[in-house]
């Protein structure tokens, strides 16, 4: 039975499904590397972004200017070039090559990717968090002031909790953007999901199989992530929805209009 299926696929499938199945464990390993890089850079980038966003939303020009320069540079240039700058560029300086961090960290593709990705997502997250902090309801802050909250307390108890919630929809985009951006890792020799696809195509001299498998797996990951975020949003943003939103179908309102 199994042989019959394989023989059938061998003759009739336009792409070599058997080969993909044989190497599927490699693809899963690649997906694991992709998820790892994405998740770790989101965590590191998020930790950098929170204090920077507070600075950006504040009005200290001395602190604000360098943070603005950081976010502007990292948001205005391609992630590919940023990654190249770290991976290929740092070796140009002798003092870096002789420092203790060179061998275990800065000469390793994986670490360079992680550093570049973290800084990149930190820049984007800073700006979207800044927007969320700035759109905090004025009355809430005034109420906190009237209750005698210190500035620190206001941030911790009033501003940040609601800002995080408001930033959630935009942040889900950033997560998917980072996942997409992580393909850059395959250009600096890392065997991530796309890296495995490129390896398969190179090894067996194929044109589609590796890329199509990688594409399908990326699509699955993106769909799972966005589904997860939607559930999360429903949980955390319930108070922001109109009260009768559950009953009315939002699509209905638009259905009448067609061009």
């Amino acid at each position, binding site marked *: 039975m199994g042989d019959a299926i394989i023989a059938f696929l061998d003759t009739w499938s336009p792409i070599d499904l058997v080969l993909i199945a044989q190497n599927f464990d490699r693809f899963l390993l690649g997906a694991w590397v992709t998820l790892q890089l994405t998740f770790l850079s989101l965590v590191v980038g998020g930790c950098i972004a929170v204090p920077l966003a507070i600075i950006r939303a504040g009005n200290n020009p001395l602190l604000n200017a360098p943070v603005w320069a950081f976010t502007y540079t990292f948001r205005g240039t*391609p992630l590919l070039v940023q990654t190249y700058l770290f991976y*290929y*560029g740092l*070796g*140009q300086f002798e003092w870096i090559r002789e420092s203790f961090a060179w061998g275990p960290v800065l000469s390793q593709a994986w670490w360079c990717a992680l550093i570049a990705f973290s800084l990149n997502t930190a820049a984007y997250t800073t700006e979207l968090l800044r927007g969320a902090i700035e759109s905090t309801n004025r009355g809430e802050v005034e109420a906190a002031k009237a209750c005698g909250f210190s500035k620190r307390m206001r941030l911790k108890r009033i501003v940040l909790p609601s800002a995080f919630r408001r930033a959630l929809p935009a942040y889900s985009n950033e997560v998917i953007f980072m996942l997409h951006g992580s*393909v850059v890792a*395959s250009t600096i020799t890392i065997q991530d999901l796309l890296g495995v696809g490129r390896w398969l195509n190179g090894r067996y001299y194929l*044109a589609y199989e590796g*890329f199509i498998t990688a*594409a399908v797996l990326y699509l699955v990951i993106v769909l799972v992530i966005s589904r997860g975020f939607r559930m999360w949003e429903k949980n955390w943003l319930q108070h922001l929805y109109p009260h009768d939103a559950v009953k009315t179908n939002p699509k209905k309102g638009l259905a009448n209009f067609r061009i």
Partner: protein
Amino acid sequence: MGAIIEYQGQLLQGTWVTIQLAIFSAMFSVALGLLGAWAKLSKNILAQKTAAGYTTIVRGVPDLVLILLVFYGGQELANQFGSLTGLWDYVEISQFAAGVGTIGVVFGGYMTETFRGAILAIPRGQIEAGVACGMNKYLIFRRIIGPQMVRYALPGFSNNWLVQIKSTALVSVIGLQDVVYNGFVAGRSTRLLFTFMFAVLMVYLVLTAISDFGLRWLDKKYSKGIVRSDDG
């Protein structure tokens, strides 16, 4: 710095390729976006489903994967098709065409959403008024929807364009001699990769800054006579 001046010809040439790539793919993506928005808002179920599938796939798969698939797979497919039908002998897809095609298709998906949102933002009453005046669909699109759509779509378009310029860097992976590729080659031969990658970074920063400026000017132009609320 001296090395950059020495290699400025290559860098400028690469920058020009990048600009061309960005502009052509943007034109392609705007065309696809209009088509996609029309399909998504049409009554035709097949068109709706096709457009929905298109935007899901294109926004779910990373652009580099699609670029590689189109460049290597597309060429193979074209040649298999050619030998099967006998229409052509051997074709080679150029890196530039693969880049413009793929980036155009990918951002067409994003533009579809932008234009769809822009069309839906136009108050319905205006379209009803058009119908009441006896205008047909095309006239309504040309006189009422079209001109206002530009204004509503501009913020989304600006965003897409800024991302699109940066995405063109990925085409260097398939060997297109854009600013990243040329900068990398120059950096490798002079052993000054940091210097050259930094110069490339600056090129992109300048391109983004110029576009930012231009788009802001366009935004001002198209929102003439519109009063914005203070807290908006």
